[in-house]
């Protein structure tokens, strides 16, 4: 059979190459949150990308200079809003470090349960959305139901589902009711079956693996250069976890593993987050088993509201109550940096106090903002659909990006 003349590909010297500029965002169904990417593309291959942020900049750091310490907790809620309790407890532990308050063990264990539940909630969103972006919507619908159960637990503790403003400086406002303990026990009993189902759906699914392996990889050296932390860094191969490196809230009492990936691509990020959910369940089980008895708050009348009976009958309690509510407590001068392991990595709080009722300077070290810088490098040379998948697997949350 004679070879037909190839009329589609012109001879090499005759084609002129031109790049197309594609604007992805700020409103786009695939970008989870509002940020813009201007892509320079050669057909379907991405040549370069320029991200633009600030579309939801709410001036948290300036706002924090206006608010007394207890009122900053609702601000921290709205940074990484998928796992608000971790932000809240991170802020409270920062202030407790500044005030040098000793927290009872029971409070630590209760806080650990809350933080691990919110970590599970955050990873549920990220993993199901990775599934949805590859076309597997089932995982999203089935697993999202379990976020409702976590919301029920949060609601029974603090009254709110999403932006929780949970616990207080010094501990919890009340000890948990039986309803809360029952719900947590039921969750720990029933969630493994649902997570196993989700794993069976995607983890060894040939289509999913073909789609996500080698999609948006980053090496460990480049990840460290870009100050990556959290699951994205662990997927690249570095086993850094704030809970193990600088333990806070009695994390040293718990026995858990840190999952680490190899190539830092989307599949590794997915599996690392998945395994972290299993490890969080282990931590919650250990905390429930070893829950110490004791008070549910530290004995610091200067910063923790006294019980109402004393406020009505006792002069000092009335004065403490007034000062705490009006935000006129005596905060010492000093500066402190404290970090917790958020859903996305090392969430740091750099607090400078000048002795006034509001912070002098409060800076949030937001992991999302810092690692999103590497996005153009990660998608260069890849296809557009891989770029979308990389973005969703990095778990970019707009509230934390812009603050």
């Amino acid at each position, binding site marked *: 059979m004679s070879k037909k003349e190839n009329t589609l590909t012109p001879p090499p010297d005759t084609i002129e190459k031109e790049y197309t500029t594609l604007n992805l965002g700020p409103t786009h169904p695939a970008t989870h949150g509002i940020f813009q990417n201007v892509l320079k593309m050669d057909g379907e291959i991405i040549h370069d990308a320029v991200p633009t*942020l*600030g579309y939801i*900049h709410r*001036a948290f*750091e*300036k*706002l924090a*200079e*206006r608010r007394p310490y207890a009122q900053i907790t609702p601000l921290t809620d709205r940074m990484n809003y998928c796992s608000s309790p971790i932000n809240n407890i991170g802020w409270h532990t920062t202030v407790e*470090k*500044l005030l040098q308050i000793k927290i009872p063990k029971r409070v630590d264990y209760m806080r650990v349960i809350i933080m691990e539940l919110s970590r599970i909630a955050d990873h549920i969103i990220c993993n199901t959305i990775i599934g949805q972006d590859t076309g597997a919507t089932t995982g999203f619908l089935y697993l999202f139901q379990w976020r409702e159960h976590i919301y029920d637990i949060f609601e029974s503790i603090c009254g709110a589902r999403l932006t929780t403003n949970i616990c207080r400086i010094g501990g919890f406002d009340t000890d948990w009711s039986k309803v809360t303990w029952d719900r947590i026990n039921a969750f720990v009993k029933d969630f493994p079956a649902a997570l196993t189902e989700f794993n069976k759906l995607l983890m060894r699914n040939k289509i999913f693996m073909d789609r996500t392996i080698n999609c948006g990889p980053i090496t460990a050296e*480049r990840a*460290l*250069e*870009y*100050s*990556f932390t959290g699951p994205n860094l662990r997927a690249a191969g*570095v086993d*850094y976890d704030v809970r193990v*490196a*600088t333990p806070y809230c009695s994390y040293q009492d718990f026995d858990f593993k840190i999952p680490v990936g190899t190539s830092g691509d989307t599949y590794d990020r997915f599996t690392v987050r998945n395994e972290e959910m299993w490890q969080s369940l282990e931590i919650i089980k250990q905390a429930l088993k070893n829950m110490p008895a004791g008070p549910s708050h530290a004995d610091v009348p200067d910063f923790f509201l006294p019980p109402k009976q004393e406020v009505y009958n006792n002069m000092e309690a009335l004065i403490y109550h007034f000062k705490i509510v009006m935000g006129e407590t005596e905060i010492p001068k*000093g*500066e*402190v*940096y404290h*970090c917790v392991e958020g859903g996305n990595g*090392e969430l*740091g709080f*750099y607090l*400078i106090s*000048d002795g006034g009722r509001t912070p*002098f*300077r409060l*800076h949030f*070290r937001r992991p999302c*903002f*810092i*690692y*999103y*810088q*590497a996005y153009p490098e990660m998608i260069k040379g890849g296809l557009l659909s891989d770029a979308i998948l990389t973005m969703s697997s990095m778990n970019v949350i707009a509230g934390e990006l*812009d*603050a």
Partner: protein
Amino acid sequence: MSKEILDRVTARLSTQFPGLHLESELLYDFPVFTVDHTKAHEILKFLKEDPELNFHFLTDLTGMQTADEKQLGVIYHLHNMPKNMRIRIKTFFDIAKPEINTATDLWAGANWMERETYDFFGIRFKGHPNLVRILNVDEMDIFPLRKEYPLEDQTRDDKSDKMFGR
């Protein structure tokens, strides 16, 4: 442990940079060093590349304004992960001429952190590849986190300051 880190870093810096004016203190169990802004880049380079100190990870880079409102400062948080050592480096300069060398040649992650500091305080980082605003609108001509500028939008006419004192 922190006192040991403080002493070790002070000793190494004094050996490497003789005659360096260095203030070091331990604040809330955290070693803090205040250095001159003209030498900050060399010191950071040494801290990163010295095999014994090995502060290879830049945790955070941020800015601040001092209480007397006459100086601006840049604060670096560095981390040595294998040995679990953390330190803080502070540098200050006059608000009339806030310039300092960039750290993007040492850590790629400093890029956006410096843009954010420029956006909020107006600190110019010499040698930065793309020092433009990142979070605020591009047309803004003030540096909002400085103490002289208010938090609220001043162009509103539907709120009465008589009721809510500012």
